[in-house]
């Protein structure tokens, strides 16, 4: 079945440094959609980015990611980390199952930004 790997469980950075959170995936479907969700403590996970287009950069709220189907990757990046970026980030995959989205999530990367 589908799988999503986020190899870093915890990333700690100093404010102002660039952010890169890794995400790779496996699926047999060629029309996979990839997502990044951000989960702040005591809030709901919310969509940050999504893409299904190969080699096209997607941006939102200062973050960006590019889906590379050749390497099955969808890494999340930001040029300069802010304290408010501290949160849990989930990468997720949808193979567009029958009738509706069925997301496969990675284990998440906890991002901590220090002053």
């Amino acid at each position, binding site marked *: 079945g589908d799988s999503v790997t986020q190899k870093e469980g915890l990333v700690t950075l100093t404010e102002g440094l660039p952010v890169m959170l890794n995400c790779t995936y496996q699926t047999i479907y060629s029309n996979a959609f990839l997502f990044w969700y951000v989960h702040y403590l005591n*809030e709901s996970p919310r969509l940050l980015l*999504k893409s299904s287009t190969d080699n096209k950069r997607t941006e939102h709220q200062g973050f960006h990611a590019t889906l590379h189907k050749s390497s099955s990757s969808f890494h999340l990046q930001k040029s300069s980390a802010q304290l408010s970026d501290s949160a849990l980030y989930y990468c997720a995959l949808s193979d567009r199952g029958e009738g509706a*989205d069925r997301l496969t999530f990675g284990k998440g990367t906890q991002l901590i930004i220090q002053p």
Partner: protein
Amino acid sequence: GPKVLQIPSHQIIDMGQMVTLNCDPVSNHLYFYWYKQILGQQMEFLVNFYNGKVMEKSKLFKDQFSVERPDGSYFTLKIQPTALEDSAVYFCASSMTGWNTLYFGAGTRLSVL
């Protein structure tokens, strides 16, 4: 933005009892979902629901689980009877169509003792 509300935020229950988790989805959404997250692991799909019916369920959706949304009220997940391995955070989500952005609730932490 649109909000999905989950009630309660934490539920403690004895093994073997019944529990109902309540979800108030976004008002004009038509598709509803439950996901389960055991501590330290990823969120996993349980079930999706549309037009009064289960569309798809995973192998985690045991026979003891059921979902319903009677007359546009709460979308509920019922577990009867509960088992120790049901202890997890359960996230509800909704979307306008099956292929739109999923909006998640903040989760209900279920502790089965």
